[in-house]
C-alpha cells in the first residue's frame, strides 16, 4: 500500500532531560527525544522500561522531577492533563479505560466534550433541550457517526462496552480518542491481546488516521513486526534510559537494542 509523501521534519513535541522518580525508584532517567509532526513514532523496550510512564509524562498524569516538555512551541516544566487535552493531545490506555456501562456511541461522545460549546450544553439550555442543545448534539453526533463508520463499528453502536470483546473495546477507545480531533495521539499498546486479523485491522486504522488527518502518533507496542511496518522513527527505552533513537532499520540493527530487548533474529 503506498502512502503519499508526508512532510515530517518539524517537531511537534520535544521532551528534554526528563527524570521521573517514585521515591527511590527512578522510572525515567534523563531521557530526551522529539516527535515530528505527522509522523508515527514508536516507543519500545522491555517491560518496566518506563514507556507508559513516558506517555503519562507527556500527557500530564505524572510530573517529572527534572526536565521540560515543549509542545507546539510552548515550553512547560510539566504538563497538566487538562492542558494536554485542550491542547490537542488524546490517548488510549493499556487496560482500556472506557465507561463500561455506557454504549459505544456514548463513550465516543464523551471524547467530544472539549469540542462542545459550553453555553449550548450548560444547565438551562439542556433543561429545555430543543433548540441550542439539540443542535449542538446533532453536530457532535454526526462527527461521532463518522468515526463509527471509519472504525467499522456500526453493529455495536448501542451495545454497552462492558459486553464487548477486548479487541472491540480497544477499537472503541481509539474512537473516543479520535473524537477529540487530536494533533497528537498517544496509543498505549493498542494491539495487546489481539489476534492477527484484529491487529491487521488496527494497523490499517492507525495508518488511515495518520494518512487522512495527518495526526501525529506516538505508539507503545511490543509486536516488532507492527513497529517495523508502521513507524517512521523509533525510540528505545531500557530501565528508564534511552538506548537508541532512529529509523526502524537503524534501531533493529543497533547492538545495544539487540542485547537488551530484541535478541538475535532467527
Amino acid at each position, binding site marked *: *500500500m*503506498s*502512502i*503519499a509523501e508526508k512532510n515530517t521534519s518539524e517537531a511537534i513535541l520535544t521532551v528534554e532531560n526528563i527524570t521521573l522518580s517514585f521515591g527511590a525508584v527512578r522510572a525515567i532517567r534523563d531521557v530526551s527525544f522529539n516527535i515530528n509532526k505527522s509522523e508515527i513514532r514508536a516507543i519500545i523496550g522491555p517491560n518496566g522500561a518506563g514507556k507508559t510512564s513516558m506517555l503519562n509524562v507527556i500527557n500530564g498524569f505524572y510530573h517529572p522531577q527534572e526536565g521540560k516538555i515543549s509542545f507546539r512551541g510552548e515550553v512547560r516544566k510539566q504538563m497538566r492533563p487538562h492542558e494536554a487535552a485542550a491542547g490537542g493531545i488524546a490517548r488510549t490506555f493499556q487496560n482500556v479505560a472506557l465507561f463500561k456501562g455506557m454504549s459505544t456511541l456514548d463513550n465516543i461522545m464523551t471524547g467530544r466534550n472539549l469540542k462542545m460549546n459550553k453555553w449550548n450544553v450548560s444547565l438551562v439550555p439542556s433543561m429545555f433541550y430543543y433548540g441550542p442543545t439539540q443542535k449542538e448534539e446533532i453536530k457532535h453526533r*454526526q462527527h461521532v*457517526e*463518522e468515526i*463509527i*463508520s*471509519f472504525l*467499522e463499528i*456500526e*453493529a455495536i*453502536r448501542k451495545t454497552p462496552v462492558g459486553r464487548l470483546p477486548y479487541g472491540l473495546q480497544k477499537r472503541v477507545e481509539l474512537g473516543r480518542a479520535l473524537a477529540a480531533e487530536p494533533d497528537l495521539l498517544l496509543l498505549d499498546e493498542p494491539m495487546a491481546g489481539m489476534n492477527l486479523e484484529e491487529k491487521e485491522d488496527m494497523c*490499517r486504522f492507525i495508518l*488511515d488516521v495518520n*494518512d*487522512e488527518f495527518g495526526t501525529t502518533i506516538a505508539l507503545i507496542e511490543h509486536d516488532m513486526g507492527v513497529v517495523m511496518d508502521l513507524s517512521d522513527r523509533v525510540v528505545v527505552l531500557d530501565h528508564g534510559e534511552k538506548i537508541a533513537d532512529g529509523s526502524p532499520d537503524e534501531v533493529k540493527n543497533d547492538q545495544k537494542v539487540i542485547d537488551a530487548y530484541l535478541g538475535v533474529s532467527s
Partner: protein
Amino acid sequence: MVSANLDSVDNISHTEDTFPKLLLKHARERGSEPAFRQKRLGIWQTLTWQQAKDTAEKLSFGLANMGLERGDKVAIIGQNTSMMYLSMLATQSLGGVPVPIFSDASNEEFQLLLAHAEIKGAICQDQEQIDKVESVKESIKSLEFLVFEQPRGMRGYTQNYIYSIDGLIEAGVSAKGDRKNNFEDEVMAGKGDDLSTIIYTPGTTAQPKGVMLSYRALILAGLKSAKHEGINAHENVLAYLPIAWIGDHLISYAQHNTLGFTINCPESPDTLLTDLKDISPSYFLAPPRILEQVHAEITGRIAGAARLKQSLYNSFMKLANRVGDRITSGKNVGPFDRFAYLLGKFMIYGPIKNTLGFNKIKVAFNAGDPINSRIFNFYRALGINLKPLYLQAESSGYVCLHQQNEVRSNSVGQAASDVELRINEDGEIEYRSAGIFSGYYKDKKATNSVLIDDGWFKSGDAGELSENGSLRLIGRADEVGSTTSGVKVSPQYIENQLRFCDFIGNAVVFGAGRAFVSALITIDNEKVNGYLEKSDENIPADEEISQQDIVANLLEREINSINTIFSDDPDNSGLKIEKFIIIPGQFSSLNGEFTQMGKLRRVFVTEKYKKLIDAIYGGNDIVDAKASKNFGVKAAIKIRRL
C-alpha cells in the same frame, strides 16, 4: 404505470423494454418516490427516482468519457449500495453490459472471470477490490479503467487509470459538450432483445459459465412473477445478498426497475438484523442460512427467557404449528382455533415478527438449497408467507410458483404461467419460458448441450412432478445414481437430511457407482461443545474432538434415525448410510468445498478427500496415520460403521 396492463404480460412496449428506459419512466412519472434508501451515519437517507436518474446520467457521462461503447462489459464488484446499482444502469444506458462479480472471489477466480468477460472497466466498492483487480490487471488485455466508490486508503494511488466516482463524474460532465447524443437518446437506442447482463454461475463442477440474459427475459420474468404474487411499486425490499447472485439481481435490480419499488441498502454486513428490523421489508428473499440464523436466534432467546414466557411460547407455538400454516394459506380453520390464534398473534407471533422485522412481509422466498422442514414450517406457522423458489440464472428465476394454499417445504410449486415444464426420461427437469437465457457467453458448445430443440432448456436438476403438478427437486441430475447393488442414491437429498440433524454441521455423501453409501461429516461445533459441556466427559484439551467416541455415538444416533426414515419410505427402500468419517475442521467456500452461495463442489471435494474415501471403500477401520496427518489429526482418523 407498468402495473396497469398486467393482464397479458407478453409484450412490453418499446418505450419500456430496457432498464434505463424504465428508469427514465419512473423519474418522469413518479420522480419524487423513493428509489433507494441507504443507511449512512446511522440514518436512512433517501434517493428519489429523479435523483437516481440524475446520478445515473452523470455516471454515464463519466463512462462515456472513458470510451465505453455499445457491447462493452463493465465489471461491478462490491456490496449493495445505491451507487453499485446505479453503475449498472449507467453502463446499460450507453448500451454497455454490466457483469457483477462476487466480491469475495479469489484472485484466480477474478482473473478467470474478468479475462473471460473481456471487461473494459471495473467499478469497485473500495480499496480491497481495486487491489484485487490491480493484481490481475496485467493478464486482462481489455481492461482500461478502474473506478472506486469508497475513497478510504486511495490517496496514494497514482495510476492514471484509477478514478474515484466523483472524479469520473467530474471528468464526464466537463466533457459533456463533446458528446453527440444526450442521455435520453442513448437510452432510447437500447432494445429489449439486447444483452442486459452476464451472470456468472459459480461452477459446482466445471469452470463458471457466463449466463447471458436479455432485457426482455428479465423484465418479463419479473413482471409475471410480480403479477402472481401481487408485488407492486410500494414494496420495501432489503438488498443484502451478493449483487452477483441471480436472486439479488432479479429482485433488487430487474424487478426494482420494472415495478419501481424501494430498495433499502444496509449499513454494513454486520448490521443485517438491525437493518431488517428498521425496514420491515414487505418482499423478502433469503438463503436457508439466514432463515436458520434467525430461527436459532429466537430459540436461543426463548431458552434464556423466564418460565412464564417459555410456557406461553410453547403453548402458542403448538397451536401455531397445528393451524398457523392453514390460516396463512387461507384454508378453513375452526372458530375456537381462529380466536386462539388471534390471541397468539397479539401475545407471541406479533412481537416475535416485530423484533425480527418480519411483520410486514407480503411474500418471502427461500432460494438456494432446501431448508429444514421444521424451520420452514415455523415461519409459516407464525404467519409469514414463506415459499421455496426454484432459482436458476438460466431461467431468470421464472420457472415455478406456488398456488396460495399449496405451500410445502419440499416443493417449489407448480409451473408458473406461460412456463412449460417436463421431466425427461433421465429424470431431468426441462422447461421453456419467456425468461430463458440467451446462451453461455463465448461457449457455444455448452449452450448447445443444454438449449435444445424449440427452446427447451435442460436444467441439469433431477426432479419429480406430482399429480397436481407440484415439482420436487431431488438434486443435480449428474449426481443422482445407484449403488452397485442397484439402490438409488441421490447424494444431495441424503446430505440435506444429514445437515438437518442437530450435531451435524455439514456432510458429503458418496454411493453412486459404489458398493454402499457413506458420508464425510463435519460437526456443528456449537451444539457439540454445548453437549460435551453438559455431559461429564473429560476430554483432554489437545485431543481432536472429531475423533472422540462420544461424539461419534452422538452422530450415530442421528444417522440411525435417518436410516430409519429411509427404510420407512417406499421410494427409498434399501437406502442406508453404512459408514462415515467425522472430519476435523469445517467445510467452507474459502477452502474450496463450497461456492460463495453455499453449493457443494462435489468434484473438488472428492479429489481433496480421496485418501479418506479410498480408506472407507477399502474395507479399513482407520485411515492410515500419514493421510490422517494431512487432515490435521495426530492419531489415525477412525471410520465409523453403522
